[in-house]
């Protein structure tokens, strides 16, 4: 456990070593928040959610928190390749640390950072657009954001395990991130997508996470459990897959 904490400590040190990097990693979702919730928000007007009209800002903000998870998960997962190529992975694996502990530390580190990003975005946009959510919803968001992060980072780590080089990973990520971002309900309600795109939207882990956050922030508490359970189940499944693949990969350095 101590070694796992040591690795998480390292992940957080790496993230916080440059305030500029922290600011830049927050910039993408914040810019999207401003652009979409003003420009698109005016064009779209109100959105129907669960049969009730809500402002576009109220609709988009929970999804934008998931966008924050997406951007920080991507940048953190590519560090696997950088560490392998720089010799840092061999250094870490030369400590009494198993490949599984290393991969789990990546999960923990990324989840902590991504959750902080998600919360910051949620907080700032809530203030910006004058939204009001009660304490219970905020507490539920504190559970939902890490779960969403685990689900999304699993997707990236799975791909890390399946491709051989950083170059291939970056190409795959550029493609996949755009699809995950725009073929999701972050910006648009699900019924706005036409067939067969709506199938892709439905199975997209970003959609599943965004709908969970939307449920937490906008729907009655009775709906949260189902949404949280769905994200937990899918996240667990993908985590097991990613950990197994990466564990196997890092056994041979």
């Amino acid at each position, binding site marked *: 456990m101590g070694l796992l904490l040591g690795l998480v400590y390292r992940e957080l040190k790496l993230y916080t070593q440059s305030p500029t990097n922290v600011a830049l990693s927050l910039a993408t979702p914040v810019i999207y928040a401003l652009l979409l919730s003003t420009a698109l928000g005016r064009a779209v007007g109100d959105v129907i959610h669960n049969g009730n009209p809500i402002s576009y800002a109220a609709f988009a903000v929970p999804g934008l928190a998931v966008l924050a998870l997406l951007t920080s998960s991507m940048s953190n997962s590519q560090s696997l390749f950088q560490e392998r190529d720089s010799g840092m992975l061999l250094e870490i694996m030369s400590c009494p*640390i198993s490949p599984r502990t290393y991969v789990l530390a990546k999960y923990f580190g990324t989840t902590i950072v991504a959750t902080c990003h998600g919360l910051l975005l949620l907080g700032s946009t809530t203030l910006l657009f004058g939204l009001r959510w009660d304490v219970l919803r905020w507490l539920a968001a504190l559970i939902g954001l890490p779960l969403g992060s685990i689900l999304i980072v699993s997707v990236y780590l799975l791909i890390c395990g399946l491709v051989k080089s950083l170059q291939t990973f970056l190409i795959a990520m550029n493609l996949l991130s755009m699809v995950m971002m725009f073929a999701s309900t972050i910006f648009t309600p699900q019924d706005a997508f036409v067939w067969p795109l709506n199938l892709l939207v439905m199975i997209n882990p970003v959609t599943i996470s965004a709908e969970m956050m939307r449920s937490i922030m906008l729907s009655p508490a009775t709906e949260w459990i189902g949404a949280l359970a769905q994200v937990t189940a899918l996240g667990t499944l993908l985590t097991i897959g990613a950990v197994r693949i990466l564990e196997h990969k890092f056994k041979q350095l």
Partner: protein
Amino acid sequence: MQVTSNLTVAIAISDVWKKYGRTQALAGLALEVPKGSLVGLAGPNGAGKTTLVKIILGVTSYDSGQVTVLGLAPRTQGMQIRGQTAIVHQRSGVDAFLSVWDNVQIYIRLRGLEVAASETKARELLRDFGLEKVLQQPMIMLSGGESRKVQIVRALLLDPPLLVMDEPTASVDPESRRTLWSKVRQLTSKGTTVLWTTHDLHEMAAVSDWAFVLKGGQLVRGDTPRNLARLVGGDVIEIRGRFSEELRANITEIPAARLIRHSSTELVFESNSPEAALPRVVAVLHDCEATISAISIRSVTFEEAYVRLVGGEVRWAFY
């Protein structure tokens, strides 16, 4: 090759084979490292030194053979071995954008060491290696030698049964090398086994108790540096003076003497019977009207023995 028949063995390698794709990295390697000794591994690039280090740590598997490290099997007990082993890798295993001190602090946590005591020890070691002024600098700003010293400091934080160093003194200044070997000797005196690789054969001969010469994934010879030189045998004839290029081109075929190095001011031969070879060499030089200012005969050094052992591929690479 068994060199430790009556000693306790820290690392035992027996008929180990390892292939990366089409490259045969180890081809039936066999050697034993005595407990508490300082053992140097030498060999040309691609001889299998780094592969051996990785196999010992259990971070790379092997195709066949037997390996025992501190009585443990790397294939199944790699974690236990790594828990008892400090390592300085050949490639930089540091977080480049973090400071020296951050890197040390992280290492302390990754090794599961007691934080306060280890930080105190780290500060002393960093001072001993002249790094106290760069503590807050990002690693990326450091020179190659300084970066290497940070890796060494981290490894020396432990008091391990086994210390493995892959080219630890590359780019490191002489003063820090002395500090390193002094610290390493303190460790071996307490029973630590040290295995290190290098291309600096002079240094290897000077500090190592045992030297293993590897080539093509096999052990060519293993013994003390002095015995290795004796085993290879022969003497070196060094002649100083003025030698034309034409002379140097024609002097390669003298019976009993093999020209191994030459320049306009120096000819170096190796010979198994210098007393027979020298008159012939001098006669040839005299016939060619070369000017001779000094002649000396001495025993083969470890470096020269190494060159003979590994063949022509790395001939005089250390000069």
